C-alpha cells in the first residue's frame, strides 16, 4: 500500500510541476495579447476578486457577456459577424449611423445631396484625432471606401457600393469634405454609405491583406474606446479613449467576456460575474431578476420572422389563402415570446418600426370559415403539405408545431421536416426543392429598397420563386424616386401587392432582450441598436 501511495503521490507532484511549467509558458504566448497599450492591465492585479461592475480602486469596469470569440483580426473591411462588428463599434467610428429613426452623425457633421440626386457631399468633423495622435482627415475616408470597393479585398459592403452600372466614386474635396457620386440614382444612397467604419490611412496604407496583418492586433481608431487586451477565447478588454470626439467615456473599462454556453452565461449574470447579457424570453422567465438586481430591456432589431411558400409547388392561390386564413399569428407569438413586450406583429414585409411600414394590407386574420371556403375553391379537399424549418432553432421548432395544429383544424395536414439551418437555406434557394412551405427570418436595412433581393422575381434570394412583374416594377420605381411622399405611396402599394400574392406571411418581429445590471445607467443615451447593442458606449455610466 505504501508503495502505491508513494507512486500516486509522485504522479500528483509531477502533474503539479507540469501544470506550473505550462502556466508559466502560457504567460508568454505570443498570440495571447498585445500589451502595447495595456495601461489598465497591470494595475488591476490586486489580491482578491475583481467583481464585475464595481469600482476597483479608481477604475470602473462594465462586463458584457458575448457568445462567441470576435478574434484578433477584426478589421473594418472584411469583418461582418456580430461580435466582430461589436468590437469594431468600440474602436472605430462610422461617418454616421442610419437607423430606423433617422441619421445619427459621428465623424460626419452633415450630408447633402446634389440637385440631380447623384452626388452626396459629406462634411467631416475637423476636431477628430486617431488614438495614436494623428489627425483624422478626408484622406482616411477616401482610403477606406476605395479599399471597400476593390474586388480582391472581398469587403462586406462591396455590393452596396459597386453596382452593375459602376461603382460609387469617392472624391476628396478638401481636408474635411468628401463627395460620393452614385453611378445611378438610388434613393437608399444615404443608407448605403452608413455604418462603414473608417480606418486610418497612415496605419493601413501598406497592408496587402486586411484579414491577416501585423496591425489588426494593435488597432488605431477614433472610437470611444481603445482595445487594450485580447485574450483568445476569454475576453476582449477596452480602455477609454480620453480624446473621444464626443466627450470622454464615463466608464474606464469595458470588457466583452466570451461565454459560449448559455446556461453558464445565465448563471454568470445572476451571480454578478457579468453585468449584461442577451437572453431569450424563456430563459429570462426562469431568472430571478429582482433579487439579483437585474432589468430586462427589450429592443427592436427590425427582424422579421416569416412563413414562405414555394410558388412553384403551391401554384394555387386559393390553397395558399386557405392556409393563411387558418393561422393565428398572435397566439403563436404569445406562446413563444411569453409577453407582448417581447415582440411586435408585422403585417407586411417591412419591419413595424420602419417609417414605410403600413397596416393597410390584407392581414389574413384568422378566419376558419374563409379558410374552408378557399380550400373548397381550390378543389383540393385534404391537402398534405411539407413544412421545413431549422431543427436547431427553438423558436422555429415551436412555431412549426403550432402551425401544424392550427392548419389541422381546417383539414390541412402538415408534415414537419426539421433540417439543419444551412441545409435549409441552400434548399430554399433551389426552385425544385421538396418543401411546400418554410420558415426563415431576416434583418435587412432601413430603406425598403434593401429588401429587393428577397422579393424581386428571379433573384437568387427570392425563396418563393414566384413571377410577379408588377412587384419588380414597383421596386425599381421606388429606387428611382427621391421624393419621400411619393416613395411612401409606391411602397404602400408594393406591400399590398405582396400580401395579395399570399406567398409571403410575416409571423413576428421579435425583440432582443438585454438583461442588464441595475448598476448600469445611461442605456437610453447610449441607445440600443441592431447588431452592435449600444450605439455609443461612451454614454454608459456606473451608478
Amino acid at each position, binding site marked *: 500500500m505504501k508503495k502505491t501511495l508513494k507512486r500516486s503521490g509522485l504522479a*500528483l507532484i509531477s502533474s503539479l510541476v507540469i501544470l506550473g511549467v505550462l502556466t508559466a*509558458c502560457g504567460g508568454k504566448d505570443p*498570440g*495571447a495579447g498585445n500589451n502595447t497599450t495595456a495601461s489598465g492591465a497591470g494595475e488591476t492585479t490586486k489580491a482578491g476578486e*475583481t467583481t464585475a461592475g464595481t469600482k476597483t480602486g479608481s477604475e470602473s469596469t462594465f462586463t458584457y457577456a458575448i457568445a462567441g470569440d470576435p*478574434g484578433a483580426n477584426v478589421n473594418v473591411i472584411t469583418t*461582418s459577424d456580430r461580435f*466582430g462588428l461589436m468590437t469594431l463599434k468600440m474602436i472605430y467610428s462610422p461617418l454616421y449611423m442610419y437607423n430606423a429613426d433617422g441619421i445619427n452623425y459621428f465623424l460626419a457633421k452633415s450630408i447633402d445631396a446634389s440637385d440631380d440626386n447623384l452626388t452626396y457631399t459629406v462634411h467631416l468633423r475637423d476636431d477628430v484625432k486617431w488614438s495614436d495622435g494623428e489627425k483624422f482627415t478626408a484622406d482616411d475616408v477616401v482610403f477606406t471606401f476605395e479599399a471597400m470597393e476593390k474586388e480582391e479585398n472581398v469587403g462586406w459592403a462591396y*455590393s452596396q457600393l459597386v453596382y452593375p452600372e459602376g461603382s460609387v466614386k469617392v472624391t476628396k474635396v478638401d481636408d474635411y469634405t468628401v463627395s460620393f457620386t452614385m453611378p445611378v440614382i438610388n434613393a437608399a444612397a444615404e443608407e448605403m454609405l452608413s455604418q462603414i467604419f473608417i480606418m486610418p490611412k497612415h496605419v493601413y496604407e501598406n497592408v496587402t491583406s486586411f484579414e491577416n496583418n501585423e496591425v489588426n492586433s494593435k488597432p488605431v481608431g477614433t472610437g470611444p474606446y481603445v482595445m487594450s487586451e485580447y485574450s*483568445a477565447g476569454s475576453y476582449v478588454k477596452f480602455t477609454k479613449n480620453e480624446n473621444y470626439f464626443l466627450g470622454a467615456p464615463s466608464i474606464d473599462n469595458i470588457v466583452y467576456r466570451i461565454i459560449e454556453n448559455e446556461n453558464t452565461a445565465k448563471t454568470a449574470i445572476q451571480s454578478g460575474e457579468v453585468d449584461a447579457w442577451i437572453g431569450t424570453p424563456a430563459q429570462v422567465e426562469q431568472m430571478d431578476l429582482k433579487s439579483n438586481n437585474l432589468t430586462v430591456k427589450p429592443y427592436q432589431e427590425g427582424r422579421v420572422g416569416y412563413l414562405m411558400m414555394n410558388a412553384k409547388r403551391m401554384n394555387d392561390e386559393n390553397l395558399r389563402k386557405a392556409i393563411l386564413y387558418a393561422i393565428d399569428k398572435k397566439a403563436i407569438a404569445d406562446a413563444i415570446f411569453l409577453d407582448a413586450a417581447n415582440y411586435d406583429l408585422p403585417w407586411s414585409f417591412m419591419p413595424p418600426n420602419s417609417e414605410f411600414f403600413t397596416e393597410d394590407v390584407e392581414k389574413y386574420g384568422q378566419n376558419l370559415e374563409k379558410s374552408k371556403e378557399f380550400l373548397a375553391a381550390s378543389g383540393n379537399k385534404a391537402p398534405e403539405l411539407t413544412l421545413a424549418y431549422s431543427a436547431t432553432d427553438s423558436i422555429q421548432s415551436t412555431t412549426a408545431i403550432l402551425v401544424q395544429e392550427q392548419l389541422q383544424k381546417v383539414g390541412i395536414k402538415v408534415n414537419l421536416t426539421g433540417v439543419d439551418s444551412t441545409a435549409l437555406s441552400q434548399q430554399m434557394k433551389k426552385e425544385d426543392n421538396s418543401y411546400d412551405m418554410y420558415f426563415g427570418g431576416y434583418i435587412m436595412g432601413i430603406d425598403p429598397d434593401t429588401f429587393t433581393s428577397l422579393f424581386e422575381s428571379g433573384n437568387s434570394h427570392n425563396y418563393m420563386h414566384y413571377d410577379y412583374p408588377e412587384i419588380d416594377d414597383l421596386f425599381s420605381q421606388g429606387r428611382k424616386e427621391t421624393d419621400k411622399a411619393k416613395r411612401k405611396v409606391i411602397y404602400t402599394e408594393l406591400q399590398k401587392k405582396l400580401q395579395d400574392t399570399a406567398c409571403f406571411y410575416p409571423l413576428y418581429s421579435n425583440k432582443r432582450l438585454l438583461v442588464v445590471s441595475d448598476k448600469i445607467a445611461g442605456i437610453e443615451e447610449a441607445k440600443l441598436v441592431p447588431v452592435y447593442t449600444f450605439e455609443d458606449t461612451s454614454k454608459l455610466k456606473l451608478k
Partner: protein
Amino acid sequence: MAKYILKRILTAIPMVLFITILCFTLMHFAPYDAIDAMTNPRMSQETINLIKAKYGFDQPLFIQYIRWLDGLMNGNYGYSIVTKQSIAADLSVRIPNTIKLVLPAYFTAYSLAVVLGLLAGSRKNRATDKLIDGFSSVGIAVPSFWFSMLLIFVFGYKLKLLPFVGMNSVGMESSVVDFLRHYIMPFATLVFTFLPANIKFVRSSTLTQYSEDYVLVQQAFGASRREIMFKHVSKNVLLPVVTRLGMALPLLVTGAIITETVFGWPGVGPYFIKAIQGLDYPIVMIILVLSATLVIIGNLLSDILYCLIDPRIREMG
C-alpha cells in the same frame, strides 16, 4: 527490439497519410461550408462566388488536397473562414490551455483509479468493493455537463465561493491564486469524468489476476494477503494499466470539450464546437487530423511501452 519499434513507426506513417485523405474527402462531401453558413440576402451571388474563390473552393479536389497537405507539412494550417484567424496561432494558444486542464486531471484520476481499483479488486464482493464499484457505475452514467452545472450552481451561484467563467479574471493573468480559483471546478469535473472508467478497468484487471493459478499457489504456500497483492498481483495488473496511458494521449486535445465549453475555458473544446456549428471546415479538419494522429501515436506508444515492460513480449518480438 529496435527493429520491432522501427517497423511499428514505419507502418504508422501511411496510416496518418490515409487519415488526412479520409478527413479531407469526407469534409469535401459535406454539402455546405462556412461560406454558405455566412451568406445572407444582402450579399449578391457574385460576392459569394468571390469569397469562395478566395478560399480556393473553386479548385479541383486533388489540388485542394495537395495544397492543404503541403500547408500541414509546413506548419501552415490555414485560416478560419469565419474569423479569418490563423489556425496555427489559435491552436498554439488553445492547446496549452487544454493540456493545463486535462493533464493534471487525468493523472489525478489515473492515480486514484489505480489505488481504488486494486482495493476493490482485492476485496471482491465485500463492502469496500461494492462501494467503489457502485460509485464508478453511477459515475459513468453521470453526464459531465450536468455535473459541472451542478458545481456551478452550488459553489458559483449559491455559495458564491468560486468564479466559474474562463481561466482568469480580467487583468489578473499573472495571479496564480486567481488561476487556481478558476481551476478548481473544471478540474474536479474532469477528475470525476475520467475516474469511473479507469477504476472499472483496474478492478477487472485485478479480478482476472486473482483468478490466476499463481495466486492459488501463493496462497497454498501460506503467503500473506499483502505479499500476494504487492509482490505478485499488482505487477501484473499494472501491465495493461500502464499501456492504457498511451491510449489517453488524444485526450490532451479533445479530452475536455464539454467541460471547457461549460466553464468558458479558452481551450480546444469551445473552439472546436464553434467551428462545427459554423461549418468552419479548415478548423474541423485540423483538429480531426490532430486527434486521429494522436490516437495512432498513442497506440504506438502503448505497444512500445508494453514491449519495454513485459519481458515475454520482448522475447517474442
